[in-house]
């Protein structure tokens, strides 16, 4: 009897311990379940604290990112040595390396056109109707071939967000065609009221306006050149034309050898 009593007590003890363990495990499961539910709810309602925690957890270490450039001073702006390129072209041609001869001659043209462009930039006014030239925006672009030719650009800026952008294109076959189109009188047949043909310093020209870009003046000159002025935030056509009149087309024409 005593033996049965001891067994019963042991069973009861084991059962109690087991129930406690099961209860504790159930509690752990419930807690874990509760956390998962909380996370889902937070995610749905975009809880900021949890979001930050999640972001912190998934953020990749900096070392794993692609290497980004943090220094460097760009490309050197050496002016091509025209005489050297002419000598190179001569030598390559003598050796029947025609492709090299052509490449060297192109480099020489590039150097010459850069010089022509820089000379024209120097001849342009520094101030136009209160707008000052922005030297950092000066551009001379030369491809060394007639397809695009030489493009010179200068920007003037001033009060009230006004901007005048001057582009001079030279020795481009496409510009030559544009010039023919302009002088053919085709513009006169349009019924658009936002552009008209005018005379600008003894040249046929076209002036246009639209609300987005403002005023624009195009003047084809010489055999294959064009002078384009674009003005943003000018009050009137007269104000824009007063600015455009500061530029000496004949001087530019002479510098370009047109």
């Amino acid at each position, binding site marked *: 009897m005593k033996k049965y009593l001891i067994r019963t007590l042991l069973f009861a003890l084991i059962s109690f311990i087991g129930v406690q363990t099961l209860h504790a495990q159930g509690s752990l499961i419930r807690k874990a379940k509760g956390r998962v539910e909380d996370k889902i709810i937070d995610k749905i309602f975009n809880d900021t604290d949890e979001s930050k925690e999640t972001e912190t957890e998934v953020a990749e270490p900096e070392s794993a990112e692609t290497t980004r450039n943090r220094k460097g001073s760009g490309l050197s702006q050496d002016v091509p040595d*025209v*005489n050297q390129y*002419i*000598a190179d*072209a*001569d030598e390559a*041609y003598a050796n*029947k390396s*025609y*492709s090299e*001869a*052509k490449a060297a*001659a*192109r480099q*020489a*043209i590039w150097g*010459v*056109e850069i*010089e*022509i462009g820089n*000379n024209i930039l120097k001849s342009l006014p520094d101030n136009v109707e209160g707008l000052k030239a922005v030297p950092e925006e000066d551009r001379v672009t030369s*491809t060394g*071939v*007639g*397809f*695009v030719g030489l493009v010179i650009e200068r920007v003037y800026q001033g009060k009230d967000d006004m901007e005048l952008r001057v582009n001079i294109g030279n*020795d481009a*076959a496409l510009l030559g065609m544009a010039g023919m189109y302009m002088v053919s009188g085709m513009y006169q047949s349009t019924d658009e009221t936002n552009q008209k043909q005018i005379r600008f310093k003894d040249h046929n020209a076209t002036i246009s306006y639209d609300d987005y870009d403002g005023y624009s003046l195009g003047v084809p000159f010489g055999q294959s050149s064009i002078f384009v002025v674009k003005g943003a935030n000018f009050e009137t056509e007269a104000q824009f034309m007063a600015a455009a009149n500061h530029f000496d087309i004949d001087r530019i024409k002479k510098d*370009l*050898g047109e």
Partner: protein
Amino acid sequence: MKNLIFTLVFACTLAAGLNAQDVNAQLSEAKSSYNSGDLQSTRFALQQAINEIDKAIGAEIMKILPTSMGDLSFIESSDNITATSSGFAGVFVSRSYGAEDETNASLQVISDSPMLAGVNALLAMPMFVSDPSQKKIKVGSYRALLQKTEDENGVSWDVQIPVRSTLITLHTTGIDTEKAVTEMAGTIPVDQIAKFAQ
């Protein structure tokens, strides 16, 4: 006959000499103009020099073009070299094959043209595959576009082979089979042309 050969050789030598002298003269003029500060004359002389160099490149390409295409022999009088130095096309070389009958072919090389570089991109576009009259083929190791045209004059084929900024075009008329055309295209020395025309 000896006199004729001598005259031809002399004429060729003279032509080559004039050509070489032109380039050297233009480069010399460019140099002297530049040193005297005349930039416009320098540019003009350099452009002329490039024009002459283009002619020399065209002559080299002409030398390596096939003298026959299939059964068709080339027509010497139709050989043409044009140098523009305008940037649209540096050198234009063309050669024709065949007689006056309806079967003939022509080969054109247009080099140094920035606009033609786009042909390579066009070849990669899938819409070209969907056109039943066009198909991509290989000529040597180069991709090419084969186009068939049928009209009241018969069948004609065009094979266009773009190599960087150079376009080689074979046009045939009166040749019926694709196989014959691709065999003709296979005789074009694309590698050598590309070497000169680059």
